[in-house]
């Protein structure tokens, strides 16, 4: 039994008959049960490290995070990830790329930057659309206000089945901070705060990650303030529209 077969079982990627046969097999084979538990732990590790693709991410949220028990396992993976971060190699490629951009001059840099920001905006809009079809946990990517422009704001329509929202706050490298904290306010009142705030880097883009119970997000316009040692690093805004029934 290879690890992909185990993952396929855990994520309901196999046919129902095959799944039933495999359930019978592992229920009477303690070693296979152990293998499944290891595969599950590694899937959750990969999930918190942002190392799974969008389809598997959705399946993990649908099938592996359905109970308090399972969410506690995820919480453990998240705490482990933060307490024991994986050592990373020096990002020489990124440093070299940055150096090339500087050498190529300001015009080229602006063109690249514009294109990147446009891509971020487009992705943010796609993300909102994607939420309509997603499972009980939602992801929302928010570009920093300073790079987005005040006229464009992300709207979030949470279905009633939503239990949690995962915000990805776009970060500029200069905004990175080991002691960052987030405050989320509605009409000037702080409704949620988190400290510290984990970061992720994907496709060369940085984001701060915040999880919020969806029950906190009543309809309205929210301001997200990312700060460090009392100084604001970035602001983000999003609208929550009345809940959509699913």
């Amino acid at each position, binding site marked *: 039994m290879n690890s992909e077969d185990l993952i396929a079982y*855990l994520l309901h990627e196999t046919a129902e008959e095959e799944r039933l046969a495999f359930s019978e097999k592992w229920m009477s084979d303690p070693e296979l049960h*152990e293998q499944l538990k290891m595969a599950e732990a590694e899937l959750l590790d990969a999930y918190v490290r942002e190392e799974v693709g969008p389809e598997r991410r959705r399946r993990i949220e649908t099938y*592996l995070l359905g109970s308090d028990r399972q969410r506690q396992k995820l919480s453990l993976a998240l705490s482990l990830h933060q307490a024991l971060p994986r050592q990373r190699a020096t990002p020489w490629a990124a440093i070299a790329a940055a150096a090339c951009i500087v050498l190529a001059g300001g015009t080229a840099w602006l063109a690249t930057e514009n294109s990147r920001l446009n891509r971020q905006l487009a992705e943010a809009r796609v993300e909102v659309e994607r939420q309509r079809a997603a499972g009980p946990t939602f992801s929302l990517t928010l570009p920093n206000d300073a790079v987005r422009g005040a006229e464009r704001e992300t709207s979030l329509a949470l279905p009633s089945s939503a239990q949690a929202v995962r915000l990805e706050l776009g970060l500029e490298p200069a905004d990175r901070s080991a002691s960052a904290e987030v405050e989320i306010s509605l009409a000037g009142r702080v409704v949620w*705060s988190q400290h510290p705030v984990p970061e992720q880097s994907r496709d060369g883009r940085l984001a701060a990650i915040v999880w919020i*119970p969806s*029950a906190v997000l009543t309809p309205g316009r929210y301001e997200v303030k990312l700060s460090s040692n009392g100084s604001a690093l970035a602001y983000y805004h999003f609208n929550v529209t009345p809940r959509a029934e699913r």
Partner: protein
Amino acid sequence: MNDSPSDAPARKHWELSREALDCLLERLDTNREAASLLYEALRARLIDLFAWEGDPEPEHLADETLNRLARRLSDGEPIRNLSHYAIGIARLVLHEAVRSRQKKDVALREIESRALAPKADQMAMEEMNRCLQTLPAENRDLIERYYSGDRAKLARSLGISMNALRNRALRIRERLLDCMQRGRDIKPGSGHRE
């Protein structure tokens, strides 16, 4: 020999009796202590079975399955393979649970939901660090190296296979999970609502 449970109705008010539990334990092992361990192992597998089906109450459904299994045995139903039979019951229990939940008011479910998203905030991190400190030094060192470094290199340095290393890491994770759950029971909450 009957090895697949029938979907017999009218068992909703049945409660597990001492006699039925004895029947199940006796079937697991004639030695009571060994039977208790086997019972717990079967319960753990059933919990995982339901949890991996995405059910919100895997422990409750596992207990319901074991109760029905005990009842079948005490009724004298011939069961050849206990694990396979338990899966048969588990499927019925799961099916009933899904149907029952579909009838519930969606809004009510939302209120009932205790589901706060996982968040590794300061308290959770402190709890994790506290739990890491409760581990024997050897285990703490292993889990730190497992998550922070090169796993293949770690396995080689310990003279064990990668699979054995993964298994050891899983055992330590389970201890940490248990420690964090106990800590959470004492001090609920992690991220905070203002």
